[in-house]
């Protein structure tokens, strides 16, 4: 699972000296919560459609479920991974596409009616730069300029796209402001269904859930253009695909998530949703071995413990960038590729969080590489 605060009002560049930005930011954060936490939006209520609820015991079918599910309110395809340049330097990368159903304009016959929005986000983590390079886009579906199709993964947002062919190859092109990705991802194993056969709970209420599968150990080949130069890269990635209508518990404040491609062919995923009173609203962890056997851990078998913190010089937010995660009797130590993998997007997205490449050791020995995501560490603003 990967969660991410997003906003439709990207790119609004209010002036830096404008004191009102705090208010705007607060609004946008609120909006982001709205997007995840509730199912009622503004707009015309007369024609608010009923989104499909997420219910247990629904069998996921492939390739159909690789495509979009427009009847659900929100959906994302989230690719994270490690790349290696010809001179053996490691890079982290992240590509995310969101689909959001707006619940408004249902009766509007205009081709511009914003019934579905497509939002995308990409980041490149290069330790030689010392921080993340990132870019985002958003659009309404339509005119062949932006879409997320049903039946198989086929998402387009202007000149950003990700398409999966029938043989299981993903092709993705991201032309970001500071870099370009042209990557090909090949899955070598069947999707890893999270939770109860893909029904993944996020909170104490049964409807606080999503359909969730992962594709770990994706083989990555391709080119990235960085500093104006094309670089051939190879690597390993992790794809999460989730769709839901009601997601978070209202008491949730943030979450920590990690997904790791282990060197022995196993795949580890673990997350916890943190409550507002330092409590844990929900925890989950699963380990699939190379043979395909999945072991899921009970909440009391899972522990997240910060080992080292890093304070962002830009936002003064402190993140536990190194974490000890215990699943059953196994202890994992998560160490970042670089400390500063903070996405400070207050001028655009309006959210500050940490999303970065990490190495994982098990009992002191190198075990694998993956991505760690930490949200909700920036304290709520008081106005």
């Amino acid at each position, binding site marked *: 699972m990967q969660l991410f605060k997003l906003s439709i009002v990207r790119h609004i560049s209010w002036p830096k000296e404008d004191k009102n930005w705090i208010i705007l930011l607060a609004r946008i954060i609120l909006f982001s919560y709205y997007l995840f936490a509730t199912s009622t939006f503004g707009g015309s209520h007369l024609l608010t459609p009923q989104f499909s609820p997420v219910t247990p015991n629904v069998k996921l079918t492939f390739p159909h479920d690789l495509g979009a599910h427009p009847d659900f309110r929100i959906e994302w395809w989230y690719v994270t991974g490690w790349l290696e340049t010809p001179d053996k330097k490691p890079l982290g990368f992240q590509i995310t596409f969101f689909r959001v159903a707006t619940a*408004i304009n249902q009766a509007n016959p*205009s081709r*511009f009616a914003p019934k579905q929005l497509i939002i995308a986000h990409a980041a490149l983590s290069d330790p030689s730069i010392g921080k993340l390079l990132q870019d985002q886009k958003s659009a309404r579906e339509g005119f062949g300029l932006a879409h997320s199709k049903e039946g198989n993964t086929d998402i387009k947002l202007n000149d950003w796209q990700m398409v999966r062919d029938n043989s299981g190859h993903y092709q993705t092109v991201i032309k970001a402001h500071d870099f370009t990705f042209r990557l090909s991802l090949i899955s070598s194993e069947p999707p890893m269904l999270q939770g109860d056969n893909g029904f993944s709970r996020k909170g104490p209420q049964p409807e606080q859930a999503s359909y969730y599968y992962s594709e770990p150990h994706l083989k990555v080949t391709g080119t990235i253009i960085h500093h104006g130069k094309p670089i051939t890269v190879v690597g390993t990635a992790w794809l999460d695909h989730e769709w839901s209508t009601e997601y978070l518990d209202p008491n949730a404040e943030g979450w920590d998530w990690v997904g790791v491609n282990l060197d022995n062919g196993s795949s580890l995923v673990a997350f916890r949703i943190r409550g507002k009173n330092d409590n844990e609203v929900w925890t989950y962890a699963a380990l699939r071995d190379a043979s395909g056997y999945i072991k899921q851990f009970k909440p009391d078998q899972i522990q997240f413990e910060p080992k080292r913190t890093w304070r962002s010089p830009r936002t003064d937010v402190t993140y536990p960038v190194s974490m000890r995660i215990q699943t059953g009797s196994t202890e994992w130590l998560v160490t970042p590729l670089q400390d500063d993998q903070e996405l400070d997007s207050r001028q655009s997205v309006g959210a500050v969080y940490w999303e970065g490449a990490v190495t994982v050791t098990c009992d002191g020995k190198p075990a694998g590489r993956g991505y760690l995501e930490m949200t909700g560490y920036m304290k709520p603003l008081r106005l």
Partner: protein
Amino acid sequence: MKSGTLSHWLLLSEWKTHLKQAAVTIIAITLGVALGFAIQLINKTAFNEFSAAAKSLSGQSDMQVLGTQATFSELIYPVLAQHNDVELASPVLELDVTVPGIVDKRKKATLKILGLDIFRAAIISPDLIGIPAQNRQFDTLADDAIFLSPAAMKWLSVKQGDFLQLHVGTQTVKLRIAGGLVRTRAGQRIGVMDIGAAQWRFQLIGKLSRVHLKLKQGVNHKTFKMMLTNDLGKQYHVIEDVDQDTRVANMSRAYRVNLNMLALVALFTGAFLVFSTQALSVVRRRNQFALLRALGLTRMQLLGQILLEGILFGIIGSLLGLVLGYVIAVTVLGIWGGDLGGGFFPSVQPRVHFDIFMATIFFILGLSVTLLGSAAPAWEAANAHPALAFKSGNEEAALMKLANPWPALACLVLGGLLTQLPPIINLPVFGYLAVMLLLIGGIALMPRFSVLIFSAISFVVTRHTSYTVLTLALSRLANTPSQAAVALGGILVSFSLVVAMTIMVTSFRVSVDDWLRHILPADLYVRTAASADVRGLTPDEVKLLSATSGISRADFFRSSKLMLDPTRPSVTLIARPIDMTDPSNTLAMTDDVIMPFLLPKDVIPIWVSEAMVDLYGYTLGKRVKLPIGTSPTSYVVAGVWRDYSRQFGAIQMRLIDYRTLTNDQKVNDVALWLQPGVETAQVITSLKNLPFGNALQFSKPSQIRALSLNIFDRSFVITYLLEAIAIIIGLMGVAASFSAQTLARVKEFGMLRHIGVTRRQILSILTVEGSLLTGLGIILGFTLGWCISLILVFIVNPQSFHWTMQLSLPWKGLLAVAMVLLISATLTALISGRHAVLGKAIHAVGKDW
């Protein structure tokens, strides 16, 4: 004595003794500069603001794609968005929508509404993004929400959360005011909503007004523009910001330039005043200068000394003028906004910035005008022979040198010739030059005229009467023509300007009035709530309307906008029934018309306004192509009609032709003729009872006329103000020259007193002189003004506004102004001369040494 000290001392002593005249000169310059600077500042600020507001709508785009008609199919948008050279394409649907219940003093109350795709507009025009309420972020995409600029909210007296009712054709749209806009310009009245919602709510599904383009880095704009223009074809225009600037500038340029010219005229009048006071002051000080020369002051030093006086007047007057002008501009903009009455800058609330460049120009203008005014007298004084100048009574000889008639005649002839030249960049530059030359020539000829006329009168009068006062006054005027001319300068200039402007405005008003009568033949006019090209009655509604009882005839009109040239404002296309037996029954034709039976059969006739001929070269009989409908069709210009309301051009065609071409069956306006004996009110009541009756607006021809003439009068208020100021400066000229003259004539009066003329009689002489001079000034001013009015009516107006008019002379008004001027100038002369005769006679004669 050092020359600097001498110069200082001479200046101070002169100013101390003749403070009033110095003050008058400075005030004249101050007023002239202030007026010119203020008008320039106001116009420039208003224009800049208007232009910036227009520009803010296009944001940071590199280019725009527009249709020749107001809207075009949205299918072009994805093509543009995916063009290889295009970084981002932002579609826009722009509408001017009628707001019911809002009455604007000037014109129809419409709100500009932009339908935007927030995801794209946020990059190109981030200032136009709506700020929703805290918990309603999706309002920016909602299909029932609108975001209003602060000025729009104030204008409509609404706030966030209120509902706004708008008329679209015969239907009403209710929108929720979801919030304000991030940043709009002060006074800018706009609303923003989602483009999908705008298409739906305003019944323009599938339509766009324009697409803003941001090009990729390194793309050559010129090449791209050329190629895209080529690819898109004649139905589209690809324009850059520059073109848009030009279009906005073209909208108001003629108005602004003409106003500035008028303001300069005030400054010009000031120059004559400087001339007259300086000339007389030089004459008065002839003895003084002769003494200085005899004491060793060189010719150049003397010239420099007199010019220095002028320069100081110029500097002080101009500086004061700049300050006053700035204060006037700030006050006017603060109280009335940027619109000076022309209606070009509605709802603009600009802030004045002290424009250093313009200030410098006006400072230089003020200074040079002063220098120009004092140059001739200074030159004469410097060149006078000291020995001769010592002698008393040769003042006239001194000024006579200025009275060479040939340069004046040359000015008049040249002025006449210039009237024959065409405009430069659509501005009547030569027309204004001709006006100036006529004024200069007319004034320069004054001495000759006054000699001729006053000698003649004097000759006749002395034969028939022996009335001392009259004979003395006449002989004085006949024998000192130059001094008379100097006094007359101001009167002549100001009165001729008043005459010219009054004749022009009257001619214009009478023509507009006649025209309104001609174009409003019906008994009642009905229109649907206006909103660009979307408004309209459907064929079913038309049928219902026509069937209303009491109506004998109904003419339906369809009007829309056509953009033929992206650097000019759109022209208006009006489709209506046109009487083919004689089109001048329908249209206010000029003489340029082809009778319908002579028209070729293979083309569609169109009738164009005079502006079309000037701006687009649509001359009578010309075959043209117009972007109407889908298939290219040939049209022939079958006639030229007079149009005083659409300065940027209008085309009329038959409704039946328009419908065949476009398949657009809607109409916007209806002209109704009633059956005999039917009351208008009765018909209005039954029309209001139609299902769509609430959306109809009714006007009687008398109301339209009254409104139009009211707008007309408002737009000329500023010119009346300028005339008044010109007259004040003219009167100041009379005051200055008479007080200077009478001072110079102290010894003459002393002598007269000695030989038995009473003080009262001297005052009478002054009165008679004053009234005779003013009378002559008025007669000549009228002649000159009439000539100038011909230039204004037949050259300046057609060249700047592209309409012709008939000449009408407002005798009564002019006579009244003449009488007021005569009385006030005579009184001024009397008052200024009064203190010259207060002294003792013996003392006065003593001056003659």
